[in-house]
């Protein structure tokens, strides 16, 4: 069969090339360029090769120390909020009504925190937690708890975590609820006939059927919490000290605070790479899990 050669298609593809080049490739290349150089202002740049990357991975330098410490804080933060939000989301989804007008009411209430912009959430909790005028801060201090997120590391962490749980548990709950709703009634009836307890129903039917949505929930929440910036920045500004300085906050400090464009560019490239790798791992795991579930033909 002869293929018709027609070069006109290039005209259709060209606009996309241009848009992608200007929106993604060129800015990224600029960052790569910066990451290889050092600047002392006045738009003067000096070649530094892979020097910044070496420093980044070396905890004994200032840059490496700050990066690795904030990376550790970030991973710990993601781990903690996943450990809270996933089980809590499942519990909420399980206790939601399955029919009637209460379903719509629950969905609306759950969706509310998701609709609030990040910096508004930050502002809400910043005020809510203040010991002098904030409702939570005032009440906690009033009943004898010495709570002050501005001066106490642990209080700051608790505030940031509770804020994230408040903001995002709904997402996990809604995803799980969708997963639960897709389970046919016959499964519950069969389990009833098989004499299954509530726990056995959860373990044998509900959890396996929620498998896929849970993976999506974990992926979304991990990515989001790993890239978190606005909320802790508004509430604690990364403090007290550096105790709630996550990678993105550190990045902004270096780039805009110190105007160390080279260091910041190197950091953001590594940061980007980590997220890409984690994304790829999740994606592979998820697609493999899907393939495994396809029934094998001729098995019986």
């Amino acid at each position, binding site marked *: 069969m002869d293929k018709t050669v027609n070069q006109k298609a290039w005209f259709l593809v060209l606009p996309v090339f241009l848009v992608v080049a200007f929106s993604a490739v060129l800015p990224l290349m600029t960052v790569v360029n910066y990451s290889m150089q050092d600047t002392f202002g006045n738009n003067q740049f000096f070649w530094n090769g892979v020097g910044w990357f070496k420093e980044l991975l070396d905890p004994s330098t200032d840059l490496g120390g700050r990066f690795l410490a904030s990376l550790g804080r970030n991973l710990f933060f993601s781990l903690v909020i996943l450990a809270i939000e996933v089980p809590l989301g499942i519990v909420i989804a399980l206790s939601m009504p399955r029919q009637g007008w209460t379903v719509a009411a629950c969905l609306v209430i759950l969706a509310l925190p998701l609709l609030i912009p990040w910096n508004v959430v930050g502002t809400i909790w910043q005020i809510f937690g203040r010991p002098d005028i904030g409702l939570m801060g005032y009440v906690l201090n009033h009943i004898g708890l010495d709570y002050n997120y501005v001066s106490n590391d642990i209080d700051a962490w608790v505030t940031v975590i509770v804020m994230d749980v408040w903001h995002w548990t709904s997402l996990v709950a809604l995803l799980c609820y969708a997963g639960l709703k897709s389970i046919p009634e016959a499964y519950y009836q069969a389990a009833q*006939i*098989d004499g299954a307890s509530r726990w056995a129903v959860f373990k044998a039917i509900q959890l396996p059927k929620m498998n896929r949505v849970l993976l999506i929930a974990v992926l979304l929440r991990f990515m989001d919490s790993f890239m978190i910036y606005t909320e802790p920045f508004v509430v604690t500004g990364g403090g007290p000290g550096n105790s709630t300085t996550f990678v993105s906050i550190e990045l902004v400090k270096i780039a805009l605070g110190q105007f160390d464009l080279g260091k910041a560019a190197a950091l953001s490239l590594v940061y980007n790479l980590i997220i890409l790798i984690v994304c790829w791992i999740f994606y592979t795991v998820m697609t493999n899990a899907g393939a495994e579930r396809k029934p094998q033909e001729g098995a019986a």
Partner: protein
Amino acid sequence: MARIDLVDLAHSYGGNDAPQDSFALKPVTMTWRQGGAYALLGPSGCGKTTLLNVISGIITPSRGKILFDGQDITPLSTQKRNIAQVFQFPVIYDTMTVGQNLAFPLKNRGVPKAEIDKRVAEIGRLLDLEPYLNRKATRLTADAKQKISLGRGLVRSDVAAVLFDEPLTVIDPELKWQLRSKLKALHRELDLTMIYVTHDQTEALTFADTVVVMHDGRVVQSGTPAELFDKPAHTFVGYFIGSPGMNIIPAEVRGREAHIDGHVIALNRAYDKLPAGAKIEIGVRPEFVEVVAPGPGLLTAKIERIDDLGRIRFARTRLGEAKLAARAPAGFTSSDGNAGLKLDPSHIHVYADSLLVEGAA
């Protein structure tokens, strides 16, 4: 192992105060023999699944009682009744192996491990699932999954009845026969009461020794396949069972004669006490009507087409307003599209308001 009695049982999704016409299941009193193979046959929405779910306890009936061996179990939950149910779509526990699936009902009831292993091995052998016991159940085909669903019911030694809710819907046609004969064999071997819901008459007639036909929430007839064929108690049974279904023709019946379209048809029995004002029809199966050349004393019908089913030919004819199917003997042809109809008087039934009327000898 149990006899199941339904006593004035009815169910309405709208509560008992709803008009009885709207009941999903109209009042029924009947007995299911211990060890019987029953089929609940009827079109979609006739209430057969409701009846099944009432027996299994998934639905609590709004009226009446269910007795297992004379014991009232109406208020008992599904878990406490000793029934097994196989659903339309296979229900298997994804994360478990076939063996763990079979063991699940016993584990939930706290049966000792040794006993569980013994029962699982036994049921695995019975259902030809032995090679798969250690494999993940999700990877099996639909018919194997249905066998697992059935196995979870059979694995309990105390099971009183096995209920099937159109279990072959998702099975490939050639496997349907295999699985159905497997059920039949199991029934003979295990002496269990089996109730099989279906809308497919072939499935019902081949599986069951008693077929219960339901129509519009009501049990209209319960009998052996032969009884349903020879003596349908309701015109619905007549045309629902058999292919093509029974011919139902409006007629005027007096004594031993039926008048159709000005023609007189002799009846074998006398019908003198027909209810006044009732809609009177006669029913005769196509197998007992023969198309012949038109002649004196015969009903004359117009032939619309002749269906050749290979083994047998059926002529589709029109008799006034009524449609009528009849056997066309080998070599029968009609030059002008007209034919005479010869009805076998011993197989003509008379129906008043759709219900069979027994004539006097």
